[in-house]
């Protein structure tokens, strides 16, 4: 009996992570990009004009957005070589499980980049992120879900085009905005020590966009891979 949608998705995610673990190309590229971005922003920053608490959330989420794109680019790229995607398309599994498997692998990828980049931001900007670790982790997870939900779908759409590397950011970035705004606003209020009620509103917005994006992208995915 063929695996369930979730079972097949986990098989695909494990396969993608095994490939990334062995090649490490996208992960090292994304981490290097993130760290270099943080350093460049740091040296371009005038602490007398803008406070660290005001700048850090924007740097953090700007860097995540672009570093995550590097991993998303590769998500369906590995399927194009030797038409490996036909192995998945020819299997007796729901098309949605392919999307879900890719999204799970992309989520792990983005989360791993965050684990390295968040302490780097704390170090360079001397912001007390450790004090708010749990709340920040919740924001990071919710934002990562939204980013990979949209990015995985557009990665599948862009990969068959000649301008895939340019098309993915052009398609994805407008849809990242509703995720990045509440994530950055929530982080800024968190670092400023604002009341929890102010942060909860932004978290609710993140959850709402996550639900909409995951559901819509999973429904749309089968149409993007039909020939």
């Amino acid at each position, binding site marked *: 009996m*063929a695996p369930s949608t979730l079972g097949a998705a986990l098989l695909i995610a494990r*396969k993608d992570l*095994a490939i990334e673990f062995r090649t490490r190309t996208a992960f090292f590229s994304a981490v290097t990009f993130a760290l270099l971005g943080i350093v460049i922003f740091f040296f371009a920053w005038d602490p007398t004009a803008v406070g660290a608490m005001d700048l850090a959330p924007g740097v953090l989420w700007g860097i995540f957005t672009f570093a995550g794109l590097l991993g998303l680019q590769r998500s369906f790229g590995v399927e194009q070589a030797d*038409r490996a995607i036909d*192995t998945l398309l*020819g299997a*007796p599994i729901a098309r949605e499980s392919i999307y879900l498997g890719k999204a799970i692998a992309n989520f792990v990828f983005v989360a791993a980049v965050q684990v390295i980049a968040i302490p780097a931001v704390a170090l360079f900007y001397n912001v007390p992120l450790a004090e708010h670790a749990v709340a920040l982790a919740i924001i990071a997870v919710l934002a990562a879900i939204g980013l990979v939900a949209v990015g995985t779908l557009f990665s599948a759409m862009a990969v068959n085009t000649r301008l895939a590397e340019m098309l993915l950011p052009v398609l994805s970035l407008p849809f990242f905005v509703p995720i990045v705004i509440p994530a950055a606003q929530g982080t800024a209020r968190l670092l400023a020590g604002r009341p929890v009620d102010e942060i909860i509103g932004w978290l609710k917005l993140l959850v709402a966009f996550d639900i909409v994006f995951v559901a819509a992208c999973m429904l749309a995915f089968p149409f993007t891979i039909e*020939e």
Partner: protein
Amino acid sequence: MIATSGLGRRFGGRRAVSDVTFSLGAGDCLALFGPNGAGKTTLLRMLAGLLRPTEGTGEVAGVALPGGTALRGAVGYISHASMLYAALSARENVELTARLFGMRDARAAAAQALARMQLSHRSDTPVRLLSRGMQQRVTIARATVHSPKVVLLDEPFTGLDDSGSAALGAHLAALRAGGTTMVLVTHQIPEGLALATHAAIMRDGTLARMEEGEAWDASSYLTVYRGLVANGA
């Protein structure tokens, strides 16, 4: 096991396959010949459930085209691309397919499939380090690991050396004897005819000639093929 009636596929204004009608029972093997661009791969991809027909009807393993999970579960497909993940080992590639097809002991099934293709000694080697011929053997092991009712093969002899070709020929003959239905696309006419119960020549998207029950003269078939292809050019 396979039956089509007026099957066709258009890509925009271009008609890649048109009015293809044939039927095969259990254990039948159709050898399909034709020049590049004749529509052979498009036809195979429709039968594999990877491509939606735009004309006609078809049925594979009791499931109407374009099919779904039931059809894909009954089919093994070998394309002219390897369909393998280069960073994974031969065993991991075959095992992944076995798991996606819901096989209980996927690891043992993968080991058996690789042993049939005489690759047990290289099963833990990453595919990117294998020669083209060995990759082709892994491809065949991957496509047949779940003992499909229908096997669709697109140029399976490409890249194989003599021993690989012999192993593949023996494997396909055993599958046929076991009741597996096959459609074999190849440019190697003698190898194709040796395995076939039906033979067809495809040209410009249509079946220009179709014979059943081995009612052909193998020695003159190449001449017939060249004549037919040249007339259509």
